[in-house]
């Protein structure tokens, strides 16, 4: 199966009619841990918006009926036999997408915070900037998303640190609403940080020469379930991510996954 990279064919997205062609070649990955409440409506929304989009729910060893619910709503379900956290679930999803030869993977949280209606925006940004990874940012543009003061402060500090690490402006380092293309998918299926992966994964990507860009997205309020990051965990999050960002700079770059070295079509 030959796969041509997105940045190599410009005509592909020229026609508006063919705009949605990428949707058949993408896989929507939803990591879910006890997301019974919000997952059903989200999956229904995705199905009505994009009937052709394949959806994989990664059930991170939930205690509730997340897996059968997702299956009943027509999603493919990856059942992790033990809890790995968001990072481990996402890597499982990336491996799955890579094995099945998808060209794009879209990541979206299972709590309904990320509106599926905004997915074409991500795809458009991916194409327009010829980027490998697009992040849906809460803080870019008009929509002023506000959280608690301390959380905002933490996110701002993390954004500054990450912007320095990536040598480009990143406004929303913790956003899990992303779209990635096949080279980045290949990289992520091999290397993905374990817990609180989003900021670190961006730093790793830019270090390997991948292009990252952001686009503004309106996030919704959480539709159900609980945040995986509580008050105490937020401090741990900040420290863990800071350490990871600092140490990653001191690591050698893996030339096998360098962006320049993944020019040729990747066999699924």
């Amino acid at each position: 199966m030959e796969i041509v990279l997105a940045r190599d064919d410009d005509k592909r997205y020229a026609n508006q009619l063919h705009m949605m062609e990428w949707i058949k070649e993408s896989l929507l990955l939803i990591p879910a841990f006890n997301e019974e409440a919000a997952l059903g409506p989200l999956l229904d929304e995705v199905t009505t918006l994009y009937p052709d989009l394949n959806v994989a729910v990664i059930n991170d060893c939930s205690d509730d009926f997340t897996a059968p619910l997702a299956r009943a709503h027509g999603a493919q379900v990856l059942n992790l036999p033990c809890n790995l956290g968001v990072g481990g679930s996402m890597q499982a999803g990336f491996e799955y997408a890579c094995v099945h030869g998808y060209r794009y993977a879209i990541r979206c949280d299972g709590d309904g915070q990320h509106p599926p209606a905004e997915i074409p925006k991500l795809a458009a940004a991916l194409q327009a900037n010829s980027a490998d990874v697009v992040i849906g940012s809460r803080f870019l543009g008009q929509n002023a998303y506000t959280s608690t003061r301390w959380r905002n402060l933490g996110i701002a500090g993390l954004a500054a640190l990450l912007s320095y690490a990536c040598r480009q402006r990143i406004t929303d380092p913790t956003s899990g609403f992303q779209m990635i293309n096949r080279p980045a998918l290949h990289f992520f299926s091999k290397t993905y940080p374990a817990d609180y992966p989003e900021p670190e994964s961006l730093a790793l990507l830019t270090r390997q020469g991948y292009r990252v860009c952001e686009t503004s997205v309106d996030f919704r309020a959480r539709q159900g379930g609980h945040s995986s990051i509580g008050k105490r965990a937020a401090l741990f999050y900040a420290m863990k991510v800071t350490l990871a960002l600092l140490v990653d700079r001191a690591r050698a770059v893996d030339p096998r996954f360098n962006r320049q070295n993944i020019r040729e079509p990747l066999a699924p």
Partner: protein
Amino acid sequence: MKALLELLSVGLVLLSGLLFVAGRKQNRFIAGCWLLLGVALVLFLAGVTFTTHAKVMTMDLKLRAVTGLLSFFVLIATMEAVRRTQMRERYALLWLGTGLVILVFAIYPTVTIAWLQKVTGMQYVTAIVVVIFGFLLLVAFHFSVEFSHLHRKLGALTRHCALLERRIEELEREVPSLGKTGTDKFQALETPNPPPSRSA
């Protein structure tokens, strides 16, 4: 106090000797260890009687006895754990190293302490504590590294399992003769009325 210790050590020698000679074969190793410990104690106590004319043990000697016992305990416990395959050899090495270093400190206090005092300026007790603490730190560090390795391997295994399970599900869908087995069966059990699944 000393008489009690002598009695204990002689008793230990006799008991473990008996176990060594007459006991079951798989207990021979541990009996041998205890025999060695008993002999060492006897020799140590004899040495004490010959070198010091006073009937009471000095603090230095007590300390040597305690550290010697400690090292013996560590060594025997480690070897026994390895023998019972409760501990892998690579983890045992650090523990054996700890025990041996403490043993050397107990047997040759003058040489080691003179050296340690020259290097660090510490007293005997402090030096022993620092050595033990240092080795425990090493062991803990080793564990952290190994935990991280294990965590990575566990993650890889878990992901692979999940992918394989999904693959089985796909194959079951491909082969109609399999019917309601495996994951489909679970699905049927979990959901009363599953709607027809899409594009899976």
